[in-house]
Every structure is written in C-alpha cells, then in structure tokens.
C-alpha cells in the first residue's frame, strides 16, 4: 500500500467521525437527529472508501446510501411521526450492550490474530472500468440478472403493501 500521509490523516479523521456519528445514531433520544447523523456516518464511510482508492464504490455510497436510502429512512420517520415520542430503549439495553462488547472484543481478537496475506500489487488507479468489465462478465452476469428480478419483486411487494384494499 502506498498511501500518502495526507490520506492517512484523512482516514483517521473520517474514521473518528464515522464512529462518533454512528454512536449518535444508536444513542440519541431524537430519532430525526439520529437519522441525520446516519447520513454523516454514510458520508464519512464514503470518504474512507476514497482513501482506500475505491472510487466507484465511494460514489455509489454517496448516491445510494447518503442519497436514496437516507431519504427513505427520513420519510419513514417523518410519516410515522414518532419523533416526539423520542427513542426509548427496551429491556434488552444491558444484555445488548454486553453482547455488543463481547462481539467487538471477539472481532478485534480475530483480526489481530489472523495473518493477512497482503498483496504487493498497487491498487488500481481507477476501478470503474475494471468493475464494469467484471460485473458484465460471464461470471457475474447471473448475479446481475438476479438483482434485477429482486428489485422488481421488492417493488411489487412495496406497492402491494403500501396500497390499501379500497383505494
């Protein structure tokens, strides 16, 4: 990996922003603010993808996560108007915290103890063209087609569920 110091600093800033805003998403009482913080978190993760030289996925992250998915979530929040009620936590708060901590410890132990076979090759300057080739190659075209049927199924399902019987 040849990443400049600038990229390294950028990574740490964005990592901190991502973690802080993600904690905000989970802990804040106000659901609407939590959703806005989620957008911040999505954007900083997009920034992390940029520092990792993954330009295409960074753009997708901004367009779909920070754009479309956040809008959907904010719609869901505004339309259900539970904002005033706040964001109460349930009785699983303590066990949840415990399980989260156990999981985090386990993951870190795993990551530290695994020998990763780092590649010596430099990452591609631009991944977009290579991704397009791969996505429409014989190997992934089936996945691509399944994804299109999946989107259709989800769309039909959403239309059916959102519309009432008598409308």
């Amino acid at each position: 990996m040849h990443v400049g110091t600038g990229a390294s600093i950028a990574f740490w800033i964005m990592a901190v922003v991502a973690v802080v805003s993600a904690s905000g998403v989970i802990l804040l009482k106000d659901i609407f603010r939590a959703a806005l913080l989620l957008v911040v978190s999505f954007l900083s993760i997009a920034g992390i993808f940029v520092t990792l030289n993954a330009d295409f996925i960074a753009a997708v992250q901004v367009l779909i996560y920070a754009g479309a998915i956040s809008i959907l979530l904010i719609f869901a929040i505004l339309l259900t108007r539970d904002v005033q009620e706040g964001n109460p936590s349930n009785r699983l708060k303590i066990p949840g915290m415990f399980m989260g901590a156990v999981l985090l410890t386990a993951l870190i132990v795993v990551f530290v103890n695994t020998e990763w076979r780092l590649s010596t090759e430099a990452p591609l300057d631009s991944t977009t063209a290579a991704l397009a080739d791969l996505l429409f190659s014989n190997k992934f075209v089936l996945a691509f087609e399944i994804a299109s049927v999946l989107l259709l199924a989800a769309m039909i399902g959403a239309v059916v569920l959102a519309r009432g019987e008598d409308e």
Partner: protein
Amino acid sequence: MPLRDLYLLSPEISIVGVAFIIIMLDLWIERKGLLPILTIVLLGLPLGFTISLWGTEEQAFDGVLVVDTFSIFFKVLLIGVVTAVVIASQETAARFRRFQGEYYGLLLMATAGLMLMAATRELITIYLSLELSTLSAIALVAFFKDTRSTESGLKYLVLSGVSSAIMLYGMAMVLGVTGTSSLVEIAKAAPVSSLADNPALLLGVVFIVAGFGFKIASFPFQMWVPDVYQGAPTPVTAYLSVASKAAGFAVLLRVFYLAFGDFSSDWSMLFGVLAVISMSLGNFAAIFQTDIKRLLAYSTIAHAGYILIGLAAVASRVPGGEAFGPQGVLFYLTAYAFTNLGAFFVVIAIANKIGSETIDDFAGMSKRSPLLAGLLALCLVSLIGVPPAVGFWAKLYLFNAAVQADMVWLAIAGAINTAISAFYYLRVIKVMYLSPAPTEERVRLTPPIGLAVAMTTTGVLFFGIAPWFLLDFAIRATSGFPG
C-alpha cells in the same frame, strides 16, 4: 452468454416468466379464480425444463450455476411445493379483492430465488438468490395487511436483515482470507488445514452458519418462527416451513461440503451441537402451545434440528461410497415437505370453516369430519416418525447416518426428542378424537384444498410404504456429491 447457458438456466427463467405472465394477466382477467389454475398449468413449463435437464452434469456462467442431479432434485421438490401451495391458496387468496396476481407472482419469484440457491456455487449469487426469496417472502407474510400480518412482516424483515448482515460479515471474512467468492476456489485457496489455525476463517464459518440458521429456522435464529408463522397467511406459512428450509439446507450442504470440505471435522461438531439445541428448544416450547400454527412453528424448529444431524454426520461418508448424511437430509426434506404441507393444508381446510386455529376448537373433529381428522392424525404421526408414515423412514435414515458417523450420542438425543415430541402431537390427536364436539355441524372439504390435501397425504402414505422410490432419487442426487 452462450445459448447453452440459457438452456441450463431455463427452469429459473421460465418460472420468473410465469410470474410476469400471471401479474400481467391479472390486469385483464375478471374472474380471478382463473389465476391459480393458469399458474398451475403454466408451472408445467419450468417443471418440464427441469425434468428435461435430469441427468446432465454441467456448469454455466463460468461455474457459477451448476446443473447436476442434486440441484434438479431440489428444483423438482420446490416446484412441487409451490404447485401444492398455489392449489391450497385459492380460498385464502380469494379473500383479498385486489393483488391476487401479485400474490401468485411473488410466490413464484420466491421459488425462483430458492431454486437458484440450490444451484449456485458462488457466494454473491447465493446471497442474491437468498435475498430474492426472502424479500418476496416478506411481502407475502404481510400480505393480509391486517395488524397481525403486518407485524409478522416487520418482524420477518428485521430479523432477516440482521441475519443477512451477520452472514455477510462471515462471507466477507471468507472472501478476505481466500480472495475468491467461488466455492470451488475457496476450497483450493484456504490457507490452513484446520479452522482453528485461522481465526478469521473460523469466524466466517460461524457467522455463515448463524446467517443460514435464519433460513432453515434453526438455533440461533429461530425466534422469528412462531410469530411469523402465526401471523402470516397460512398457505404462506406452509410454504416457508417447507420450501425455504429445503433450499437453506441445499445451500448449507453445498457450501460446507464444497468450500469447507477439508474442515469437516471442525464443523461437524458445530452442527451436532446446533442440532441438539434446536430440537430440544423446539420440542419443549411446542408442548405449551395452544394455537395449532404456533405448535407447528415450534415443531419446524425441532425438525430443523433433526435435519442438522445429517450435516453433522459428515464422517459417515465413505470416500467414493455412499454419503449417508446428505442422502438422509434430502430424504428427510422431501418427507417433511409432504408431511408438513399435508398438516398445514388440513389446518387451512378446517380453519377456513370453523374460523379458529386454536387446538381446543378442533375438539371432536373426528365426528365433524372423519376424513380431515384422520388425515391430520396421519400427518402428525408422520411428524413423530411412526410407521407406516414416511416420517418414520426419514428419521431412521438420519439417525442411522449419525450412528455410521460414530455420533451415537446424536442419534440418542434425536430419539429422546422424538419421544418428547410424541407428547404434543398426540395431544392434538387426542383432542380431535376424544374430546366432545361443541357442535354437530359438519366440516366439509372444498375441491381445491381437498386436491392439495389429497396430493400431500398420498405422498405421506405412498413413500411410507415404498420409501425406496424416494431413497433411490436421494441417492442419485447425492452420488456426485463433492467428496
């Protein structure tokens, strides 16, 4: 994309095509009762394509899609299940004034996803097929749009989301360690000989098992089962309990035998433990249920446990010889499909008439409808595993596989659980035959659901008396099994 690849994919293409046709026809056809009939007729197309492929051993799309007897076995099973469910759905679907075409269309798309799950050898494609079936199933679960059905849909969506995330984290680990998403290449690229030597790979395997646990309704993702089964339209419940379990086990078999075959001694114990937990949990909880759908829901968790025995019994595979474990799994899944569909269909037939799914309301059913009571009793007896029903042979083969694999404790745990399960299944039969009927009013069987009941219960009896027909297919489907 060569033409041959398209032919190999034709069962899936045609079933999605049928879904499109049904949804489109819904716009023009005024008599909605024609839709299920058309669906069943058109389902002959994917079934024909699937059967015409029997015997081929080919790969398509650079090895992503594989057409072998194993995948065709599952495709035929899944098409059979969806046909039966469509037949049994008529009265339920007639209750929604709109979107009947979408109901059948979503059922078919879910089936397309499940069929692909049984036929792919690449993690990304497996994930997408799994989500195709899950998203369609979520919409189907919430299809009634009343509070209970919507809640079930939400619960199904949330828990499938969490289990997918965990499974994906596991897949990411495997992808990271091996650098590939193809199951065949994962087996070649795995850097160690034991999972314990590579924590990341171990984590990946554990997370993948946890994620698939959702699909097959086993521990640790079993908590959604009772509520979703209770709230969903009953034909959808029947479909989920059978089809998604079958496809889930097909993927598990493929992933673990193909990609992690070298580590079988590591994961066989994992599956053994999960099997015992699942069956004990399901059986104990089932004892206390008063709603027949909840009872069958807990029983499905228990049965996921029994089938996991087949995965744990990997050591029963003699190199070059018969694979008792996978054979038992395939046999059990088919037997379970006939039996459980039969049980659910009888419940639909009765519940549509008496308007209740509480076990106590089935009192005196032997007087009100001797035929339905008898058939439900037959299915429950098959679920216990008593001859002459097919469930007996299914359990026998699986427990035998455990013994062959030197895991006698697993067979004993299964036998003890079978004894426990007899208690609550027999209680239902007792209520039907010994409790006095509240009214003398007869419960009549209407033709469509009667046909579905007849199809499934005939299977329960026929394969119970002549199990070798089915066993022969199961053996042939697993003969080319990666060893």
